C-alpha cells in the first residue's frame, strides 16, 4: 500500500500492512494504478452511495462497516460539515477553495455547493490518488474556475506552486483551505502541524482553515470499540484527542463555535447537531 494512501483512507486501517510498494518505491517513481487494491477515494465514494468503485473497494468497505457500523454515518457527517462550512465560507466572502484530499468529488462537490450561493467561486481539488485526480479532471472538464492536482498534503510548496493552483487561485487573496477528514490518517512523524503552519504562512490574511478530524473522545461509549479496532488492525490512524486537534489551529483564530463535535458545527437540520458522532470540526481564520 502506498503510504500516501493513508491520508484519505479510513479503510486503510483494515488492510494488511508492510506488503506494499510504500516500503520499496522511491519518491520519484510514479505511483502505480493497481486495481487489485482498494482505493481510499473509491471506498469513500461507496460510503456516500456512489458507484465510482470496484468490487475490491466495496468488499473493503463492507468489512469496515461490519466492524464499525457507524462509518457511513461518520462519512456523511463529515461531508455534511464540509457542505455547511463551504457555504459559511462563501457567506464570509471567501470565493476561493483549496480542497485537499478531495477524493472523487461527485456528491456535493465543493464547487457545486459553493456556486449555489456565489457562481464565481473558484476551486482546486488536490489528491494523491491518480485515479481520483483523473476522474476529477474529467468531471471538471469544461467547468471554468476549477482544477484538479495530484499532490501530497505535506508537500505544501509543491501544492501551492502547482501551475493549476496558480492558474485557478489568486494566492494574494484569501483562500479557504479544506482539510476535511484527512489529518487522522497523517501520523505525527509526517509533521502535519508543520505543513499547516506552512500553508498558514503562504496564504493571504483572511484565509480560512476548514478542518475535521476523527477522535476517540467525544464518543465515550464507542471509545473502547475504537481502541479495540485500532489494536486489532495496527493502523496508522491517529485518533487525536481534542487538545491535539486544537493545536492544528495554531496561528489561526477559531471562529464560533470553535472546535466542536463534528455534527454540532453550525448545524442546519435534524440529522445534524448529533454530538454523538465521533470527531471534531472547526474553522480558523488567518489574520
Amino acid at each position, binding site marked *: 500500500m502506498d503510504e500516501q494512501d493513508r491520508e484519505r483512507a479510513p479503510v486503510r486501517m483494515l488492510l494488511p500492512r508492510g506488503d506494499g510498494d510504500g516500503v520499496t518505491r522511491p519518491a520519484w517513481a*510514479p505511483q502505480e494504478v493497481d486495481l487489485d487494491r482498494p482505493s481510499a477515494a473509491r471506498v469513500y465514494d461507496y460510503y456516500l*452511495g456512489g*458507484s*465510482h468503485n470496484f468490487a475490491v473497494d466495496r468488499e473493503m468497505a463492507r468489512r469496515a462497516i461490519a466492524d464499525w457500523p457507524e462509518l457511513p454515518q461518520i462519512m*456523511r457527517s463529515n461531508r455534511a460539515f464540509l457542505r455547511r462550512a463551504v457555504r459559511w465560507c462563501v457567506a464570509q466572502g471567501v470565493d476561493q477553495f483549496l480542497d485537499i484530499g478531495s477524493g472523487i468529488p461527485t456528491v456535493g462537490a465543493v464547487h457545486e455547493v459553493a456556486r449555489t450561493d456565489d457562481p464565481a467561486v473558484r476551486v482546486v481539488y488536490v489528491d494523491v490518488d491518480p*485515479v481520483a*485526480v483523473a476522474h476529477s479532471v474529467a468531471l471538471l472538464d469544461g467547468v471554468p474556475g476549477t482544477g484538479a492536482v495530484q499532490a501530497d498534503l505535506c508537500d505544501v510548496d509543491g501544492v501551492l506552486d502547482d501551475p493549476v493552483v496558480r492558474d485557478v487561485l489568486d494566492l494574494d487573496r484569501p483562500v479557504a483551505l479544506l482539510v476535511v477528514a484527512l489529518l487522522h490518517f497523517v501520523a505525527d512523524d509526517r509533521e502535519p502541524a508543520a505543513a499547516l503552519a506552512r500553508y498558514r504562512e503562504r496564504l493571504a490574511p483572511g484565509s480560512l482553515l476548514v478542518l475535521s478530524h476523527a477522535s476517540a473522545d467525544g464518543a465515550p461509549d464507542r471509545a473502547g470499540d475504537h481502541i479495540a479496532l485500532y489494536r486489532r488492525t495496527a493502523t496508522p490512524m491517529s485518533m487525536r484527542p481534542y487538545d491535539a486537534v486544537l493545536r492544528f489551529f495554531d496561528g489561526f483564530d477559531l471562529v464560533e463555535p470553535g472546535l466542536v463535535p463534528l455534527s454540532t458545527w453550525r448545524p*442546519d*437540520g435534524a440529522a445534524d447537531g448529533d454530538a454523538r458522532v465521533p470527531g471534531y470540526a472547526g474553522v480558523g481564520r488567518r489574520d
Partner: protein
Amino acid sequence: MTDIRTRADAIVVDSLAREWAVEVEGTSYVPMGSDELVEYLTEISADLVAALRARPVRAAVGHDAGRRLVQAHFTGPSTVERTLMLLGRRLPELLGDELREDVLALVGALAAGYATTLRDRTLDEQEAIRRAVIVARHQTEQALHASEARFRAMFYEAAIGIGLGDVHGRIVEVNPALTQMFGYTAQEMRRRTVGELAHPEDLPSVWVLYERLLAGELDNFCIEKRFYRKDGEEIICNLTLSLVRDERGRPSYQVAMLEDVTERHALQSHLEYQAFHDTLTTLPNRALFTQRLEHIFTTTPPGSARRVGLCFLDLDGFKAVNDSLGHDVGDLMLEEVARRLADQATDGELVARMGGDEFVVLVENSRGVEQLIALAERILTALAEPLELADQELTVSASIGIVERPVTGGDSSELMRAADITLYSAKADGRGRWALHDPSRDEAEITRFALSAAMPAAIEREEFFVLYQPLVAMGDHGMRGVEALVRWHHPRLGVLGPGRFIGLAEETGAIVALGHWVLASACRDARRWYDEFGDAAPFVSVNVAPRQLHEPSLLADVEQVLADTGLPSHLLQIELTERALTTDEGAPLKALDGLRELGVRIAIDDFGTGYSNLSYLRKLPVDVIKLDGSFGERLRDEEVTNTVDERIVGTLVDLGHALGMTVCAEGVETGAQASRLRRLGCDEGQGWHFAAALPREDIQEVLRHPDARSWPGPEDALASSVS
C-alpha cells in the same frame, strides 16, 4: 370546490413532504440542508398528489419522481424502501382509500423510475471511473517511461561500470563504462559469467561473500578486486555487489558497480614507495628503517633471546667533496656508496639512507657482535676501493658505530642514541674505522663528545641562534648597545646555553666557525636596527674567543662581515677575555690594532677575574672595560653598605676613566646596585635588573618604544633607595 381541494391538497403535500423528509433523512448522503430537503421533497410530493388527482391518473409522474430521487443522490437502499412504504401507506390515508389502486400504480412507477435511473447512474459512474483508471494508467505509464528513460540514461552514461547478473551468475546487462573498463563488447560480456572474472590473487573470502550474497544472506558487499581485461592487462576495481530481491524477498538478480582504481593504486604505491625510499639512492629511507626497527622491538616477546645489531655509518669529509667538487659529484658518490653498501648486505640486512651522508645497515637477527664487526669491516673494505666519478678517481672513507644487543630490555630510540654516540666516538678515534658501543663508558662524557662532534654540522644546519642582552647607559638607563649571546637549539637536547658547548667548541676548534657565524648574524641584525633607527640604533658587542684571536684571518673576516652586512664599524664592539689579551704573543695585539683602525671598539670582558696586571692595561688597545659581576655582588643589597667593595669598584672605574675607557658593570640585578654603580661612576650597565638576553624581535620592540621599555629608569632606583 376546486379551491378548497387545492388548499386541502397543499396541506397534504406539506405534511407528506415533512414526514417523507423525516423518514429518509440520513438514509442517503444528499448535499442538502434540512430545509432544502423538505423543499425538494415538497416539489415531488406536489407532483405526486397532482398526478393522483388527474383523471386518468398519470402514473408516469411516479416514474419521474423516482428519477428525481436518484438525481438528488438518494441512492441509499433504505431511502427507496422507506419512501415506498411511506407513500403506499400515507397517500391513501391522506387522499382517500378509494385511491389505493392508483397509489399502488404510482408507487410502482416510482420504483421503476428509481431503479432505471439508478441503474443508468451506476453504469455511468462505473464507466466514468473506468475511464479515469485508463487515463491515470496512461499518465502513469508515461511517467514510468520518463522515469525509465532517465534510468536508462543513468545506466548508459554512468562513469562507473554497472553490470546486472542473474542469480546463476550469468551476466545479463552491462553499461558502456563497464565494457570500456574490460575491453569486451557488451555482447562478449553477456556471454561470460561472474565466475570467469576471478583473479588468481582474489582472497578466498571474496567468493565466500559472493556465495552468501547469492544465497540471500548478504544484501551487499564492497571490496577491492583485481580483474583481467580482454587484452590480459590487469585492472584494480572497487567493486560493490548488491543483491536485488523480488517482491517476496527472494534473490532475484545481482547488481555490480565497478570503479576502476588502477591508476589511483599505481599512484598510491608510487607515493608509498616514495614515502619509504630515498629518491637519490633508491635505498629505504629513515622512515622505513625506523618502522622496521620499531617492529623488531614491538613484536619480540619478552624473554626472547633475539639480538639486534646495526652499523651506523657516516662518510668522512663528505662536506668537502660537496664544497669542492659540487653537489653533482657528491650525489654520484652517495649513489656509489649506496650501491657498495647494498652489495655487502648479503644476509638480508636492511640498508637505509638516514639522510645526508648517513647510512645504516640493520641486522634484524644478530648472531653476535662478531657478525656486526665482520660486516663493518667488509663495508670499510668495500668503500676503500677508489671511486670513478665524473672522470676522476676519488677515495671515500666512512666511520662506523656498531651497536649489538639483546632486543628485550631495550627500545629503538635507546638503540639509535647508542649508535649515534658510537659513531661519534669512531669519528673521534680517527677516520675510516669502526667503534663498538661500550655501555660502560660514561654517558655524560659521550654526550659531551657527541655534542662537540655534532657542532660543525649544527653550525651548517643553523641550529644556533643569537640572543641580545641590552647594555644600558647608567645615566638614563637608555639602551646603548646589546651583547650577542649564542644558544644552541639542539634537535634532541633542546636549547643549550653557552656553558654546554663553548668550552667544547674551543677545544675542538669549532669555535672559529661558530664565532664567525655569530659575528655575521649579529652584524646582520645590527644593520637592520641601524637601517630602521639610525643613530638611535644600538651597537652590538660580539664575543671573540682566544682561539679566534689567533686565527690570522680574524681581521679580514671582520672586515668582510662589515662589508657584507654594511654595518658601520662604530656599531661593532668586540669582547675579549682578559686571558686572551694577556698572552705574550704579539699577533693578537696586531689584530686588535687593525680592528680599532677599522673603527671597531674593543672591550675586555669579565675584567678583574683574570690576571689583572693593571699596568699592562695601559698598553692594551682597549676602549671598554666590563667589570665582572662579582665586583658588584655585594652592592646589590640596599640594606648592606660595604665601603670596601664600593671603594674597589670606584678605583677600577677611576682607573678605566683615567685611561680614557668606558666602564661597564656586568651582573646588575637590583635597583640599589644600579644606583650605587651609577654614583661610583660606571658608564654602562648590563644585567637582569635591566633585561635578560632577548630575541632580536624584542630588541626591535624596545627600540620602537623606548619609553615603554620593561626595565626601571634611574629615578625609580633613586626613589626606592631614598624611601
